[in-house]
């Protein structure tokens, strides 16, 4: 199965003896495997601890978001039937049923938790923090205190989201929170104080992300080790860098929009509210505003945000694919340029979420062209990943399987994007389950599988132990199969005209026959949800019982693999110097191994000889 064996004592990588019981060896070169874990509850400014704090928080939130999703799936499969477990406790007041306003709340909070408390912070917060200094050879972030604050600002946000459940049954305007539903307190049970709390939570998340992003940009620009030129950076770093730029430029718009909406709600401004509208018997609005303004501002952030939710995973998967194929990444520079192209184009496509909104149709045409063009760099990346695996010595371990799934699922999500980018077709499929299929394929199928791979790939660096590969493969297989059974049929539901966010679609005659398919999907979703306990068991169990490993168990090239596992404060024993790119696997320059750490010096003449041989 896994043919990668933990490295023992490779000269360049400074491996160490497994049996040295480094456990209690505080103060020695060899840190205790759990040294990062014990610092979790502290206000630490060490980037590794902060990364770990983010990671464990987001894994917890993943389970919360998953539970909310299962509530949604329950209703879609067994509408109005008594909920198992929760029916007798939480939903007792509604006779054990999910009330329609509860359903819209579940949909809203599932998306909000998954997007703002899981995907964005796990990529930038957890992996960005952990990996950036290690991979560029720095001893920490440029602004360690800011970094710690960026984590601790998550908690007030989580508190706001959590508290919002207790007002009017929770926010229920959808994660997009379009006004006037979200602007007028009386519009729905969840449009009251819950909505305000939701908006404040969102703003706090924004503050947290912004602090991270400033930090990442500064760190990557200023703190690279000698020899770590821009084009020797691992693609993980490139993707984190570009993501940070996206955040920094897109986020202020959302923050401003959030404040405007809060002002509309509490101060009586009317940025998004037209005049003379009577919602649910409230007083007529004074007005002068325009609801479409919110959509523009929201998507101006949230389209780039979907790339914020993807690019770091693309970078990490590139690193893992190269390592597990024992081959250089195919087309390193095209990979960098396509990342940049996605980010650049990402700023001018937001209107594709608004094709049916009634905005100027000429805008629709421009947004359609830019949207279709953004599929191009995505295609280029996909081909390069295939090229990377082509002819490699593929290590079929849990890490690699998750990465292959990333590529395969990203293809599905990218291709379904083309249907929606075609405006006339989008007229039909907009706000149907086709959209739901699309973004789950990119966000779960691609990003989350990428994260599963990344967790298992960098776990040894975090805890000095390996995660169990057999268990990892089982978790992968179950999740992958259940994922496809849950989400692939959604494409067909969308084509059948099944609308999103419906508490009970089946009272429409043309949707009745879709119930059995939905029941199948819900069963698959339950399997998928419970499979995640395997990941958690593996993750937490391996911290204590995993096989001890050295510094570089995967025989990888990056600078992070030259540090102790886990790295102590300040990371590197001696400041590293970087001599090549990170992907020199199986190079003729490596002698009896198949990798060439970035720190290993090779005389120029030899490098030129290899270059001339035409690689």
């Amino acid at each position, binding site marked *: 199965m896994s043919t990668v064996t933990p490295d023992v004592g490779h000269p360049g990588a400074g491996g160490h003896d497994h049996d040295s019981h480094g456990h209690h060896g505080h103060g020695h070169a060899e840190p205790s495997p759990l040294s990062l874990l014990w610092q979790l509850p502290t206000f630490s400014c060490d980037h590794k601890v902060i990364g770990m704090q983010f990671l464990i928080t987001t894994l917890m939130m993943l389970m919360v978001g998953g539970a909310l999703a299962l509530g949604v799936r329950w209703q879609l499969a067994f509408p109005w039937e008594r909920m198992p477990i929760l029916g007798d406790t939480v939903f007792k007041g509604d006779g054990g049923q999910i009330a*329609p306003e509860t359903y819209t709340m579940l949909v809203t909070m599932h998306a909000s938790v998954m997007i703002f408390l899981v995907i964005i912070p796990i990529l930038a917060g957890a992996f960005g923090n952990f990996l950036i200094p290690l991979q560029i050879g720095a001893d920490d972030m440029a602004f360690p205190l800011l970094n710690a604050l960026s984590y601790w600002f998550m908690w007030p946000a989580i508190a706001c989201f959590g508290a919002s459940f207790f007002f009017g049954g929770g926010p229920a305007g959808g994660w997009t929170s379009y006004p006037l539903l979200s602007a007028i307190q009386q519009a729905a049970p969840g449009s009251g104080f819950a909505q305000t709390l939701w908006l404040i939570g969102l703003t706090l998340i924004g503050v947290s992300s912004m602090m991270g992003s400033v930090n990442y940009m500064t760190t990557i620009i200023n703190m690279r080790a000698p020899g770590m030129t821009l084009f020797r950076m691992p693609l993980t770093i490139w993707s984190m860098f570009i993501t940070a730029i996206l955040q920094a430029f897109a986020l202020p718009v959302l923050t401003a929009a959030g404040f405007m909406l809060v002002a509309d709600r509490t101060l009586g401004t009317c940025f998004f509210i037209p005049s003379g509208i009577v919602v649910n018997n409230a007083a007529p609005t004074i007005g002068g505003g325009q609801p479409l303004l919110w959509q523009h501002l929201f998507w101006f952030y949230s389209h780039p945000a979907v790339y914020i939710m993807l690019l770091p995973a693309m970078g990490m998967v590139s690193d893992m694919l190269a390592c597990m194929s024992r081959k250089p990444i195919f087309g390193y520079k095209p990979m960098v340029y396509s990342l940049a192209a996605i980010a650049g184009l990402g700023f001018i496509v937001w209107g594709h979420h608004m094709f049916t909104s009634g905005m100027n149709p000429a805008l629709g045409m421009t947004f359609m062209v830019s949207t279709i063009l953004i599929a191009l760099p995505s295609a280029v990346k996909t081909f390069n990943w295939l*090229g990377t695996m082509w002819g490699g010595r593929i290590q079929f371990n849990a890490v690699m399987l998750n990465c292959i799934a990333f590529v*395969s699922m990203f293809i599905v999500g990218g291709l379904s994007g083309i249907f929606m980018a075609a405006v*006339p077709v989008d007229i039909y499929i907009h706000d149907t389950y086709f959209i739901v299929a699309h973004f789950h394929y990119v966000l779960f199928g691609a990003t989350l599988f990428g994260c599963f791979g990344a967790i298992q790939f960098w776990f040894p660096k975090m805890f000095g132990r390996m995660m169990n590969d057999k268990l990892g493969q089982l978790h992968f297989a179950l999740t992958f199969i259940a994922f496809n059974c849950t989400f692939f*049929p959604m494409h067909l*539901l969308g084509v059948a005209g099944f609308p999103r966010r419906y508490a009970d679609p089946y009272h429409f005659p043309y949707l009745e026959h879709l119930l059995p398919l939905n029941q199948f999907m819900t069963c698959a979703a339950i399997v998928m949800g419970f499979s995640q306990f395997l990941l958690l068991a593996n993750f937490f169990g391996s911290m204590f019982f995993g096989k001890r490993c050295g510094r570089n168990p995967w025989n990888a090239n990056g600078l992070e693999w030259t540090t102790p596992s886990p790295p102590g404060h300040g990371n590197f024993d001696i400041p590293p110097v970087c001599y090549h790119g990170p992907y020199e696997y*199986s190079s003729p320059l490596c002698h009896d191994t198949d990798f060439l750490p970035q720190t290993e010096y090779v005389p120029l003449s030899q490098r030129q000889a290899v270059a001339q041989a035409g690689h």
Partner: protein
Amino acid sequence: MGRFWAIFFSLAAVVTVGFTAIGAEYWWFPGDGHAHTTLGKKIDDLFYLILIIVAVTYIGTHIVLGYVLWRGAEIRKDEKVWFSHGSHALEVIWTIVPSGILLFIALYQMDVWRNYRVKAYFPKKTAAVAEVTARQFEWRIRYPARGKTLQPRPQPDDIYTVNDIRVPAGQPVSISLRSDDVQHAIFVPELRVKQDAVPGLVIPVWFEVTETGTYDMVCAELCGWGHYKMKARVIATSEEDFEAWKINAAKEQFYDGVPATPDAVAAKADEK
């Protein structure tokens, strides 16, 4: 084990393609599977065109993926891996070819969109049949009296229905879409019509129903807890039936118990 996973991923692709092919029998476009508007038919053509392009790409990339994995599993210990940093020629090819295809898709559909949304390109003789106002959680429809045209403001002789949109089939008609409270959207799946109703805006939507019939209509923009139950119908009838309905509807709506003709007045007096 490597070969197992190569097959695993290939099989996943085979199963999804097979599922789509077979599932399309049961879970596909609603009704008889065809669009019942002129523009809807063009939308369907486009959908199928993209479906073909996408299917070919999906199958192609997954054949490559399966092959690559299989080879990666077969490779012997003593065999060298292909040490390569990429290929300029390949990069150029796989940039140019997809961009050609994508640009084609983008430009090819421009005129459908233009016909659908740009007012100057609406069919010449589009009759404004009704104003549809969405509110939590129903649709109110206002028609001009027979022989009159739809006015932006309600008129005393306007005819009203709730949740039933009546239109004549076989000719382009337009409705003015508005919202009384929050945002909603009309979505008539079989007609391939969707448009958001935005508070403060009046948005014209045109379509030409090709076959008479009754079509389910739903709300496609989250508008509160009752979003799922804004059940409505578009009833497309022949021109004559439409006019006949209007006469009837007006009679019903304006019936106040006072007989209309002198004869009837006399008859009523006799009864007493």
